[in-house]
């Protein structure tokens, strides 16, 4: 079956004169990544074939958010297979009518949504940035198995977020809370208020990690109030707390974080 499909693919590519990538196995790396024409063509294909489920910005509608696929460890070759063959048993269909080069174009475009290429040359000192991270961020954020749990793990943030987005988050704070990290305050009938981030919730209960990193569920009818906080636990780091130069260093360090690295001993 696989053999037949590969032969068919080659035959189709030959027939339409689009035999850019007529190898039987897809290349491990997207051959058109960063190519402006491919990205443009990929945008049209993505919007026509993918956006209805995954959203115009690929952050998910009926289908899941796929802006984080590289950050979560998927490879170009694996994603190519997913585009072509779908995910059996789910709503992600096989796309036998998408030619190989079209699949690569879609991925080239998706890559621009996942981590837009920086427009300015790299600057800053990553070593100093790591030091600043340990002082200012590691109590809540984790990198390579070291650090706190209250904020998202940032081991792959360099692959998942553009420099511009990271800069905005640090300087201006968060506009919208990521699921699993929404700040919440529970006020019991007696005793002190419990602050934390929300891990899950339904009409009757809420599951949180409190500021001491204890994970625990609470029944709402046993609480005086359950308040969604509008202010994030993530502080705003203005120039008074983090100079422009230190910010460059920190961002440079964050840009190096492209996946869990077991070689790094915490």
């Amino acid at each position, binding site marked *: 079956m696989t053999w037949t499909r590969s032969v068919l693919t080659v035959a189709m590519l030959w027939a339409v004169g689009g035999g850019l990538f007529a190898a039987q196995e897809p290349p491990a790396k997207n051959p058109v990544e960063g190519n402006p024409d491919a990205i443009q063509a990929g945008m049209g294909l993505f*919007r*026509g074939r993918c*956006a209805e489920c995954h959203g*115009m910005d690929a952050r998910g509608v009926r289908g899941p958010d796929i802006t984080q696929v590289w950050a979560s460890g998927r490879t170009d070759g694996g994603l190519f297979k997913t585009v072509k063959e779908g995910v059996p048993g789910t709503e992600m269909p096989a796309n036998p009518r998408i030619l190989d080069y079209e699949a690569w174009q879609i991925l080239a475009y998706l890559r621009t949504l996942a981590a837009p290429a920086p427009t300015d040359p790299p600057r800053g000192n990553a070593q100093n940035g790591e030091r600043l991270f340990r002082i200012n961020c590691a109590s809540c954020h984790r990198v390579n198995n070291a650090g706190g749990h209250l904020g998202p793990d940032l081991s792959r943030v360099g692959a998942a977020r553009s420099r511009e987005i990271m800069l905005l988050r640090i300087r201006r704070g968060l506009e919208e809370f990521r699921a699993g990290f929404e700040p919440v305050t529970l006020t019991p009938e007696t005793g002190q208020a419990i602050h934390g981030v929300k891990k899950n919730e*339904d009409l009757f209960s809420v599951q949180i990690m409190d500021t001491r990193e204890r994970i625990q569920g609470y029944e709402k009818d046993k609480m005086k109030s359950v308040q969604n906080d509008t202010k994030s636990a993530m502080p705003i780091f203005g120039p008074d707390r983090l100079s422009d130069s230190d910010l460059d260093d920190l961002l440079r360090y964050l840009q190096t974080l492209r996946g869990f690295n077991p070689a790094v001993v915490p």
Partner: protein
Amino acid sequence: MRITTVRLVRIGLLLLGGSVAAAAQQAAPPPLVTLQEISEGLPADGSRWLTFGGNYSNQRHSPLTQITPANVNRLVPQWTFQTGTLGNFETTSLLRDNVLYVTGPQNVAWALDARTGRQIWRYRRELPPNLTACCGLVNRGFGVLGDKLFMVTLDAHLLALDMKTGAIAWDVTMQEYTNGYASTIAPLVVKDKVIVGVAGGEFGIRGFIDAYEAQTGKRAWRFYTIPGPGEPGHNTWAGDSWKIGGVGVWVTGAYDPEQNLVFYGTGNPGPDYHSASREGDNLYSTSLVALDADTGKIRWHYQFTPHDLHDWDATEVPILGDITIAGQPRKVVMFANRNGFYYTLDRTTGKLIVGKPFVNTTWAKEIDSTGRPILLPGHEPDEKGEVTCPDITGGTNFWPPTFDPSTRTFFVNAREVCMTFYAWKPDYKAGDRFTGGAGQRVSTLESPAYGALRAIDPATGERKWEFRYLTPSTAGLLTTASGLIFSGDAEGNLLALNSRDGKLLWRYQMGAAMHGTSPTTYMLDGRQHVLVPAGTTLTAWALPQ
């Protein structure tokens, strides 16, 4: 004649097995499923559930009263059945002679012992790899007549299965699935016919409703939901757009024996969002069509959303009822639409009686006296995007509502969500997606999304009460004569409320949300059961013995 033949064969088989004496000592096998039983709907003794909506009116309102608002908090599980397959239930299970007949995702189906949840037989269809089902590899249930169950398939076939074994009695192709056709609807059995429809509104199909002879599988009639050349309504499609205009039918209709009419809601026109690809009203998309059950000829239609641009299929469940409005008895059909309006129509004429928003709607000001929406400007999707409420999933959708005639109340799970809609000109390739746009959820900071169970007076469209969910629910509903309403939220809670005032009486965390389907209820060995499909499980509940 047919029954006589079957009996003779049965006697012959018994003789061959030499077990005449043993058979004589056993109770006689139950008679075949009759039209009389199906027509009677949900009987007072609770002994059966034989059609999608419980009765031909689709009311999903049970006469059973053993479980009440006072004792519902004592419900305990009797058994849980797990599918063992990927995908979720969207089915309405049928019950006959203490056996449940259940369809699941990926065209697997079962006969289960209703007392224990244990499998009696299992049917599994080998499906082709490149299916084009738009929105889940699901199935919404069996139809039944005589000794046969009827089930549609994701590759657009209609099957008849032997009730005793699950073996295929006949198998007909409705359309080639490679051209974008699929089927997920629960068949409706009317007289000697099995009525079904096809999905594929996102794949450039030309939709239809079909009727097949229950005994043989021979097609009796076909109603195209897009009129062909020379037929009334054909000129509501510019150029050749009618050939690939979509308009699937994937939710079971209602039947009015008095008029011999079936009522079906129809799907969106395609491409879904791009206006210039299909100028005109695009009949009979997003409509309720009333068809003669014998011939498939159209008696009347009512179009909810002329020239729809937001993928608002009218594939919601129509409910028939006889109610008094302004002192006059009226035969009506009730319909909560994906476009955000609730409608009460005269089911003999198709004329509008009530048309009122039941959620926040920004695209139309109101429905005028002729039944046409008065549009508000700025809601035609383009490449830049426009924000419209409700969103693509709609004010409600295919999950079944209910109607309690004793209190004249229509119940529906409603959604309050807005969306940015985009459109661009699409290219058509046979069997490929053909939508011409996309939707993007509006940030919850700008527009908080939530859901609510709403009780509506169908005589006025006014809301009687609501019960708010944390997030929008996609569960269907069940009401009982004892004053209960069963629902579910998106977080997996099974809920029982007082249908008079919406007060929550009982809840249980099922571990998965009920999606697109509702609980059913029946009597078994003197005890009322509530059967709940949620995720990959089916759980039966009853009061303690």
